[in-house]
């Protein structure tokens, strides 16, 4: 899981304090030191851990820095360009920028790039790139122009791939974007046209890129709020001059496209991107980290004072302008794994009676599955139709809904939500998470606001999971809303064990009178009506023992006890120890996913009398199970025998010493003990019978055997 830590401000100046922000933040050869370049005249070297500046340099009045200062990792010197053409190189010891090394170049510089392990590279506005050494050897050398007229560099990045420096830059001309990949060693320049879907009138707002073995993965944040990915081959596959690249959607609606300020994104590691921007048009700007693999929002931080829409990421530090201060937000990105996110999968055998909650299929997200594209197209058609009809400016339904949630009445929200859900498709589940978060957020602000029916409706979509709306269950627990908890337990695949246990506590402790009013789904509970009970009690003694009669067993000592046994369980089985509603809730717990190791510590916190009650209920269920030959309970989604047994074992494991001390539990324990004992005898009998059955099977096989020799007729078709 990725996490953002407490931010801190780099003290000192409120930098140039222009609304359009900084020119750049760059790494230096010391891990903790960063060069910050102002948009006007100043370069400051910061030591981040001490939150203080180590040095500051300014160019003369009248000069203006045109490209962020960088550090030459090979020499430790700093490089800056002012007035487009003048290159300055200086050391930490130098005080006056005017007196340091100066080289005037023949063409306008776009940027100087420097990364660890490579010589700095100067990229000119015309698209040519030069190594610093080669340039300094002959500063006035002629620089060719690669780009066509009117083509402007929008974004650049410098990588070292297998010790080969590669520079990537994106240009724009007449609304079209082009990507250039230049291998500096081989001076090999490839040009690609970035294709957008034509219908989308989106404008690309921000770029970031990461590199792996063969491809540069270019991520773009578009004005429609989505992140797209484009793979650019580092080594051109063929010599064809103008190749086309198609982008594929990676994340949907991470920010609101209509946000006033700039939005930006930065790749943190192969699986995480940081996005800066407002999630809703009206909301404050947020810094959020998204997992691109699972398409989940990992964490986010609100930035109430607004930002300049710029974000730099180096190692574990994110730099941004918050208000007028340069702020550093440390972040960590752990390795993400699906296995970690899921416990045991519930009802794996259940043959699709319920649509499983929608997990994000990350294959789909990359756009290679036809279905995804289809729904995409479908939606586009829908959208077009709508616009034809209403002829209104197009506002995404989700945004409209979110704004309603902000300040609408509960009734109004409900109506809007219903409208929204009617058009909702499963692949935009992240939006649902946002909706829930917005509802809960408002609930936090106004304690009286608890949009229960809205949340219920959202839960019924089966598309939510705990990780998508982490606050939902906590809120429901706080409100002791058992119906909501029951739904959550049923529909969430990833309820943490601590919450499962908290639910269990509530379910066991909630008063019968408050249960009376709750609308609990009863489908997992069969009618344990007493009339039915009466019919079955008569046959029970035989069935209970699975046909095993202690009379023929060689276990002489237990014979006596077993003879006495039947009345015990029969009497106990006659009545369910809990009300049907409570039983339905408890069944929800039995059906939820868990890992033993994580559940056990929480089970220890349950009060003793509740443990006893739950054990009694489980024992009752077990007896019900044993009543029929298939060892199942009637009803829709009843708990299975193995779930019941697992929970009995878990409860006893967690609370054995406590249970031993309670007088009421004594009888229960004795019964369980007897059961185990009789079960062992049954199994030993079964093992004996198995041998006889095998002999029978063998005889049967011989009958089917066709004999050693025959003449048959065969026709081939």
């Amino acid at each position, binding site marked *: 899981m990725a996490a953002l830590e407490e931010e801190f401000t780099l003290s000192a100046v409120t930098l140039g304090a222009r609304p359009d922000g900084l020119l750049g933040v760059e790494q230096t050869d010391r891990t903790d030191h960063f060069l910050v370049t102002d948009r006007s005249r100043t370069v400051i070297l910061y030591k981040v851990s001490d939150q203080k500046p180590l040095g500051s340099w300014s160019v003369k009045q009248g000069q203006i820095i045109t490209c962020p200062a960088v550090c030459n990792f090979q020499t430790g010197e700093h490089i800056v360009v002012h007035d487009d053409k003048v290159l300055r190189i200086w050391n930490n010891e130098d005080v006056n920028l005017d007196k340091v090394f100066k080289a005037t170049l023949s063409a306008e510089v776009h940027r100087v790039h420097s990364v660890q392990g490579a010589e700095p590279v100067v990229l000119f506005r015309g698209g040519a790139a030069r190594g610093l050494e080669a340039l300094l050897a002959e500063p006035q050398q002629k620089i060719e122009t690669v780009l066509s007229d009117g083509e402007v560099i929008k974004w650049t990045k410098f990588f070292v791939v297998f010790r080969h420096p590669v520079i990537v830059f994106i240009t724009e001309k007449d609304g079209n974007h082009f990507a250039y990949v230049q291998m500096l060693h081989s001076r090999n320049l490839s040009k690609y046209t970035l294709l957008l879907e034509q219908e989308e009138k989106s404008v690309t707002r921000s770029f970031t890129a990461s590199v792996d073995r063969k491809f540069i993965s270019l991520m773009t944040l578009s004005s429609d709020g989505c992140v797209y990915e484009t793979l650019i081959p580092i080594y051109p596959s063929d010599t064809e001059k103008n190749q086309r690249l198609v982008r594929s959607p990676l994340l949907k609606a991470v920010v609101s496209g209509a946000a006033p300020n700039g939005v930006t994104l930065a790749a943190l590691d192969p699986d995480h991107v940081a996005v800066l921007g407002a999630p809703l048009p009206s909301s404050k700007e947020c810094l959020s980290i998204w997992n691109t693999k699972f398409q989940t929002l990992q964490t986010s931080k609100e930035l109430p004072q607004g930002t300049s829409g710029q974000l730099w990421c180096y190692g574990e530090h994110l730099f941004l302008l918050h208000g007028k201060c340069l702020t550093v937000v440390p972040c960590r990105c752990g390795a993400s794994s699906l296995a970690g996110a899921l416990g045991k999968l519930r009802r794996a055998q259940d043959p699709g009676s319920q649509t499983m909650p929608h997990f994000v299929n990350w294959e789909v997200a990359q756009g290679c599955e036809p279905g995804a594209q289809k729904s995409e197209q479908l939606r586009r058609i829908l959208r077009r139709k709508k616009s034809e009809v209403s002829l209104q400016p197009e506002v995404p339904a989700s945004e409209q809904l979110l704004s309603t949630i902000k300040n609408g009445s509960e009734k109004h929200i409900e109506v809007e939500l219903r409208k929204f859900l009617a058009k909702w498709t499963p692949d935009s589940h992240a939006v649902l998470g946002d909706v829930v978060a917005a509802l809960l957020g408002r609930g936090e602000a106004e304690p009286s606001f608890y949009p229960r029916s809205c949340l219920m409706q959202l839960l019924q979509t089966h598309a939510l999971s705990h990780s998508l709306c982490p606050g939902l269950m906590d809120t429901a627990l706080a409100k002791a809303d058992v119906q909501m908890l029951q739904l959550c337990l049923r529909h969430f695949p990833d309820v943490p064990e601590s919450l499962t246990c908290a639910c269990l506590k509530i379910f066991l402790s909630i008063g019968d009178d408050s249960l009376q009013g709750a609308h609990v789904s009863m489908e997992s509970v069969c009618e344990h009506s007493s009339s039915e009970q009466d019919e079955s009690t008569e046959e029970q003694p035989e069935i209970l023992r699975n046909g095993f009669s202690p009379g023929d067993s060689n276990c002489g000592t237990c014979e006596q006890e077993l003879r006495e046994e039947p009345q015990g369980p029969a009497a106990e089985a006659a009545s369910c120890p809990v009300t049907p509603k409570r039983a339905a809730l408890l069944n929800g717990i039995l059906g939820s996913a868990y890992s033993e190791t994580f559940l056990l510590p929480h089970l220890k916190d349950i009060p003793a009398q509740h443990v006893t009650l739950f054990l009694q209920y489980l024992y009752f269920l077990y007896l019900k199970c044993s009543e029929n030959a298939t060892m199942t309970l009637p009803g829709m989604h009843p708990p299975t025998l193995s779930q019941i047994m697992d929970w009995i074992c878990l409860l006893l494991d967690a609370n054995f010493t406590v249970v031993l001390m309670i007088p009421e539990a004594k009888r229960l324990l004795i019964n369980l003990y007897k059961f185990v004992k009789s079960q062992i005898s049954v*199994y030993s009998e079964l093992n004996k019978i198995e041998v006889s059955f095998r002999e029978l099977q063998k005889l049967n096989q011989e009958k089917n055997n066709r004999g050693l*020799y025959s*003449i048959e*007729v065969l026709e081939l*078709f």
Partner: protein
Amino acid sequence: MNLRMGEFKVHRVRFFNYVPPGIRCVAYNNQSNRLAVSRTDGTVEIYNLSANYFQEKFFPGHESRATEALCWAEGQRLFSAGLNGEILEYDLQALNIKYAMDAFGGPIWSMIASPSGSQLLVGCEDGSVKLFQITPDKIQFERNFDRQKSRILSLSWHPSGTHIAAGSIDYISVFDVKSGSAIHKMIVDRQYMGVSKRKCIVWGVAFLSDGTVISVDSAGKVQFWDSATGTLVKSHLVANADVQSIAVADQEDSFVVGTAEGTVFHFQLVSVTSNSTEKQWVRTKPFQHHTHDVRTVAHSPTALISGGTDTHLVIRPLMEKVEVKNYDAALRKITFPHRRLISCSKKRQLLLFQFAHHLELWRLGSTVATGKNGDTLPLSKNADHLLHLKTKGPENIICSSISPCGSWIAYSTASRVFLYRLNYEHDNISLQRVSKMPAFLRSALQILFSEDSAKLFVASNQGSLHIIQLLEGSFKHLHTFQPQSGTVEAMCLLAVSPDGNWLAASGTSAGVHVYNVKHLKLHCTVPAYNFPVTALAIAPNTNNLVIAHSDQQVFEYSIPDKQYTEWSRNVQKQGFHHLWLQRDTPITHISFHPKRPMHILLHDAYMFCIIDKSLPLPNDKTVLYNPLPPTNESDVFRRRTAHAFKISKIYKPLLFMDLLDERTLVAVERPLDDIIAQLPPPIKKKKFGT
């Protein structure tokens, strides 16, 4: 009733009482991607894992040579050792045993090659560990290590070559190779689930480069020892019975153990938590592909290989290591040899079955009834067991053949070729051995009679082919085709044309040679193909040579024209149906219909097929196997869907199939249940109350 085109009477034979010997050792060679397998009767087989797991070579067994250990050394040299106390080296070119050398330590229980491949280490009954130096053409005894108290059952060499671990009874010793002295003795706990067993046999050890020794023993434990301190680090109880074998991957990140319960467990070195560097061995996957003891396991880079008493060789690919999820990623279970054990006399309707130490001759029954598809016809005469011919001496039979007329039987062991003359007088049969076989006929890899039974073709293991003229009760040596200069590759497959003019012979790797028998000279050589030949036959009249390869390709080559036929070119152009190429057993026999020159009959262990060259080839969209009779479909549909491959999967496992006459087939099946019934009962596992 008029029999229709594809209609046959099939003699369905299940009395071939063949039981493959159990697998004792497997040894994987990474360099050549080959697998050597030794069986309890001493047979050693070589499987080429790159060629669709084809069993390309074999060395016949020997009664007194029970192999206990098998290993590759010096690159691609193969050694075995066994309870007769001898170390053998196999000649993989000539397919014979190069030499046998007594180690003078009593029965040998274990053998292993050094990491460099230049030395061999054997563990003997008398507790000695002996080091042999491998010289270019032999091995040479170098020295003994410190003698131990009891037999050395398992050995493993530290990858650096400085230390070895030796598993014995109740303890494991660690030796310093330089001094030959034991530096640690690690006592294995005899206790088994609280009950003290008599002895704890260390069936296998593995020495890892970090100094860990892994042992498997008869108490069902897999244990990890620190060889530096001689202490037990970790113990896994994996079975209620013996754990009999262990094999470690070259990267030392995974290993596999086999138990007497038939289970194979995969252990992997995995990080304790994600992205931590601390790793531990975890039992990851159990596989239950065997019913009986897994006597041996091997770990190739991409698969777990196991074999044991139940005679199956199981190759289980590791899905995470398989890059392409194609058919190679499927589990392979190899049970039957990839060569013919049955020959047939069409004229007299006789079947000759080859066993390890005897031959059986059977006469097929007959019926006068007719019926429709699927009917079993009443027999008017049952099949007869005519002859049981036991070999003399301890050697296994390599190959055998009965002449088409039924009057000659020939077979060969590793040292002699035998020829018998059969006389039929009414119901009596008499057998007369042809004595004085020529001295050069020492051992044959393949024997074949000509169609008119007048000539005998013998492929010797020196690469030469002998032609012998058969006369009433005697014979005459006609000619010997010497191998191509410079090659010593043995020929394993022979085919003769029905007119007796052409002889085709194929080795394991080079192309197929075609000889002119009339002029006694080499006629041509079919271009070599990447995959070994699995079956050969020459069609009557056209003299087209049909060749099946282990990658399931079938070629037709015209001998008179010295080129591939038009049909074969077409097939290559269009390609075979993907399901055809995905079959996992090789074609072992090809024959032809005497009246239908367009038909080719061939079979593997799970299907037999008639290829009708006059029909269009199936493409990947057509249904290759059409099991249902097209009764209710219109003629048009039938014509549209008809394609060249008529396949039947009724008979399986099918060891042999041939046409007796134009309307009669003989199919020899060997149901797996019948084999299992002859094996000792497996260890019983509780089904309830575990």
